[in-house]
């Protein structure tokens, strides 16, 4: 409409049309033109300085500031190079200080020559050196006791299985001379230590190489000294071990397809076989234990039934069918309530018709289900019923005493250790648990860092998700604990490192799985169009056209002024 009736006050010079006899309107007064300009300017001023800020304010999403670059640095391994110096203490009751120092130096030298993996190295020191730095004292991983024994041809070592002490017996003649650079005793000790920590070193190398940090940190020489069998067993263990959690729920279940056995000496069995392990693991995680008895637990209909092996008189399960052994639909194996994952241990007592039941290939009765739990098939001795009828004379015992539970629970305690990722060597359990602490600390450090990296990438790639303030504070907590953990690792204080890494991991997970972030506002663009268009269309068209006309008038005015 506006175009038809307006002339915008451009000067009229010629009249070409002869059809219209009427006269043109007089040219607009400059004051009217000025007023119109002011009106249009006022409208646009209101829109730009009032409407637009209000719209922006009310529709914008709160995104807290995140230190994105720092987070990406952590994920990329640029902020921390995990180094695990393992402190080894020497007790040398029968050596003089000078001799001991010399022995230490040569041994350390030999060790450094042997070691090609820089992220994990052994640091030796004498037992009486510890007084110098009490606050910064590193955890002692192993104590080596040097004991002189006269009638020995060559040195011999003995690892105590219930403490972290390695006893080395040596003939006194082999004490290195102060001048020599090497000696049979020091190379023997170095070799022993290297052997003790071989699996741990390989595991850490594996963990590091699986992550981005590791790739950055240990790009060169590693893994060449690891034998393929060891590497494979480590990969297998890492794959089936549970994700680290502060609390694990251990659920022991007795399943049987019939009605017997319906009771077991579970309390004393747990007390005897599981509690010590749990006690030993308590610095790493907390554990809760619950047990249940489930009768009439049949296989799922899709599971192939056990086959009878006539030659050996046993019932067998195919190894490839073991994954379908658990009837997840019917067996009540709900995870326990509360934070933390549940590790299930299933004691399965086969029915008398399927006695005895074994795994076909290996004749084993137990197996681990990776990251879930363990199964043990218990074939109890079959008592005959008191009323010995003809056909149905065999039945399972109604009660399982502690003695018959013993093999099962010993197996469960082993399964628990390996599900938690404990290495299989060396023989000393405390030493293995210390290794577990180091492995867990390194794993947590890596996983918290990579969570941070994912969060940073998520924030960058989805500009429409809100980032509430708690996420920002969680991220800063994570960062501070990560650096504390990295620092503790470098100083060899692995327990502190684990504690910091735990906090870092929890906070990182919390910030990543923040509820208000996960539930992204679903407000598709079509809806925005449907809401905005009915209003902005009819209002916007006159406003924009008015603006265009004013601009055109001003431009023409300028041109006229310049040419005229």
């Amino acid at each position, binding site marked *: 409409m506006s175009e038809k009736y307006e002339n915008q006050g451009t000067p009229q010079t010629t009249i070409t049309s002869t059809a219209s006899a009427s006269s043109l309107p007089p040219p607009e007064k400059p004051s009217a033109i000025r007023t119109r300009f002011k009106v249009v300017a006022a409208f646009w001023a209101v829109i730009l300085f009032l409407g637009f800020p209000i719209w922006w304010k009310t529709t914008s999403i709160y995104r807290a500031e995140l230190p994105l670059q720092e987070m990406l640095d952590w994920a990329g391994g640029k902020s921390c190079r995990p180094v695990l110096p393992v402190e080894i203490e020497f007790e040398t009751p029968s050596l003089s200080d000078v001799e001991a120092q010399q022995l230490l130096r040569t041994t350390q030298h030999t060790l450094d020559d042997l070691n090609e993996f820089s992220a994990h190295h052994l640091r030796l020191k004498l037992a009486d050196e510890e007084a110098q730095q009490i606050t910064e004292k590193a955890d002692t991983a192993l104590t080596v006791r040097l004991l002189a024994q006269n009638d020995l041809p060559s040195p011999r070592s003995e690892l105590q299985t219930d403490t972290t002490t390695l006893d080395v017996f040596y003939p006194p003649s082999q004490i290195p001379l102060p001048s020599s650079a090497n000696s049979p005793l020091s190379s023997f000790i170095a070799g022993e230590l290297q052997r003790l920590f071989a699996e741990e070193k390989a595991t850490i190398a594996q963990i590091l190489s699986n992550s981005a940090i590791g790739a950055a940190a240990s790009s060169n020489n590693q893994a060449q000294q690891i034998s393929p069998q060891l590497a494979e067993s480590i990969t297998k263990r890492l794959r089936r071990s549970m994700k680290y959690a502060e609390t694990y729920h251990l659920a022991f279940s007795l399943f049987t397809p019939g009605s017997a056995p319906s009771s077991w000496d579970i309390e004393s069995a747990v007390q005897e076989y599981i509690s010590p392990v749990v006690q030993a693991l308590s610095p790493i995680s907390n554990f809760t234990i*619950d047990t249940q008895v489930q009768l*009439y637990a049949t296989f799922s209909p899709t599971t192939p039934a056990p086959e009878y092996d006539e030659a050996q008189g046993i019932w067998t399960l195919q190894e490839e069918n073991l994954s379908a052994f658990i009837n997840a639909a019917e067996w009540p194996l709900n995870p326990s309530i509360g934070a933390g994952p549940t590790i299930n241990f299933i004691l399965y007592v086969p029915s008398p018709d399927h006695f005895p039941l074994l795994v076909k290939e290996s004749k084993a009765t137990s197996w681990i289900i990776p990251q879930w739990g363990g199964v043990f098939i218990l074939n109890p001795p079959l008592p005959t019923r008191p009323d010995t009828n003809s056909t149905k004379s065999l039945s399972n015992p109604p009660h399982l005493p502690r003695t018959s539970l013993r093999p099962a629970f010993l197996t469960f305690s082993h399964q628990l250790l390996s599900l938690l990722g404990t290495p299989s060597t060396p023989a000393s359990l405390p030493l293995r648990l210390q290794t577990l602490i180091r492995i867990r600390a390194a794993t947590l450090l890596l996983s918290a860092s990579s969570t941070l990296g994912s969060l940073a990438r998520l924030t960058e790639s989805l500009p429409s998700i809100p980032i509430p303030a708690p996420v920002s504070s969680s991220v800063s907590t994570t960062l501070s604990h990560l650096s504390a953990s990295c620092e503790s690792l470098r100083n060899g204080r692995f327990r502190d490192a684990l504690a910091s890494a735990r906090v870092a991991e929890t906070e990182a997970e919390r910030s990543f799985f923040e509820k208000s972030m996960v539930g992204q506002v679903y407000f598709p663009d079509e809806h925005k169009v449907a809401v905005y268009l009915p209003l902005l269309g009819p209002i916007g068209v006159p406003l924009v056209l008015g603006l265009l006309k004013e601009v055109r008038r001003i431009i023409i005015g300028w041109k006229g002024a310049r040419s005229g």
Partner: protein
Amino acid sequence: MTTFFLFALILVTLSAASVASNYHESLHLQPLPPSSLLASFNFKSNTTQTSFKKQHFQYFPRALGQILQHANTQELHLRFTTGRWDSESWGSRPWDGAKEGGTGVELWAWIDAQDDEAAFAKWITLTQSLSGLFCASLNFIDSTRTTRPVASFEPAGDHLAPENLHLLHGTLPGEVVCTENLTPFLKLLPCKGKAGVASLLDGHKLFDAAWQSMSIDVRPVCAGQECLVQIDQTVDIVLDIDRSKRSKDNPIPRPVPGDKLVCDTSKPYYARDTCYPLENPGEKAWSITELFGRSISGSCPLADSQGPDEAVCLHIGPEREVRPSPESVETKLMDEFTRCFTLPPSTPFDLAVSEQEAQSNIPLDEPLLYAERTIVGHGQERGGMRIIFDNPSPSKSVDFMYFETLPWFLRPYIHTLQATITGRDGIRRQIRTSEIIKETFYRPGIDRERGTQLELGLSVPPASRVTLNYDFEKAILRYTEYPPDANRGFNVAPAVIKVSSPEAGRPIYLRTTSLLLPLPTPDFSMPYNVIILTSTVIALAFGSIFNLLVRRFVTVEEASALRAQTLKGRLAGKIVALRDKIRGKSSKVE
């Protein structure tokens, strides 16, 4: 039905006495007039408090036990009910109504907590966890559906520290109870519904019943120092015998063929082709296999069956012929109507009752009180509630507690509460409410936070009918508060009536049916309509004002002169000229 309760009472006392017993199950069958059968399943298991605390579960279900410990719940009562108990023809309720809930899901629990807020937090934990366990929408029990009854419920267990216990009560009247709730229910049983009487429980038959109620009660039972945690699960169903006997492959009822009809020959119009069918006067024949579609597959070996609590009991006239499976042993209880049977260990058990002329009617207990609740009134804005209590006893008055929770969008006006009383002579008269209401506990609702809670202590005089009336107003909900099926109406939870009867000792419960409240429901395209309408109005106003301010006004002649001058005007003039030319040509050709 007194014997039934006597029997139940014996069971309760027995189980309380024999602390060591671990698991017990029973099935009680009773024909109800005109042609129905009440089947009451009961499963009870115990665990000691110490092993419960240490989480060593044997017969007690681990999933439920962990939930209770996690939510600090000392006593739990959970009910899943569908259908309506027809007390006019079936008499008083099984278990004195103590094991049934209102339509849908009902849950109440005593939670150990320091204060009300902590108790409510634990309550939310409990409802969320139970919701997952029983596949029910229990997580929808929020603060608006939670009440704290004062006088209507009493703890059934022995609590050592009752001062810290908080009673919370929640209902979901709209919940549809179905097979997905039965499966987890059966999983809680030690024998898993694979042996024992539980092997009869099948979702197809159970939820085809005229009335069914599943209940779970967990309570602590203490005898001296030794404390037990007892879980008591019951399933009560009323099966229509004719309907259940229909075969699975021919489920549609068909008319009886003409030659099999029994006709009333005394009618004057009786002829070969006209028949007035006679009601079959005798009792119907039935067997467990016919009614439930399967037989009991042996006994559950864990159940201890010492004493009189035999597994299957039948409450039937003494002259009726009953044919059980051969291995079972029959015992008769002291009253003439009840016979009990043991279950064989591993062979299937069936029970058949033959068709017979009814000689003596089994006396049914008359309920102490009939109650009925309806919504009256019309319109979208207001309504009224009418509650009718009928005391059938000719001599005794009934004292009871009436408890109802109303959703917040139903706002009652308690000052309009009125009572009328009608005697057996049919004369209605208005009475003052204080004449029958002895005590009142009223907690008004808060919009979107909590519902109204009303507890009335009432006394109804003998042989009379009392009607209570009050008005209410319906709130208008927000757009997002409407459910997808808003036009169906909103469920109002059933009222709970607790009759304290001095003879029975324990209170008798009855519940009214749930109600549907129609609320004013908007057209749900409204938001977009509003947006479009307001936008149009604003655009119209804005456009005219803007144009008034910006446009230049000229006369018509001046306008056409101006138009001819612009490029557009010239173009239009040429088009008109061209059109005229073409028209002129075409007219020439013609």
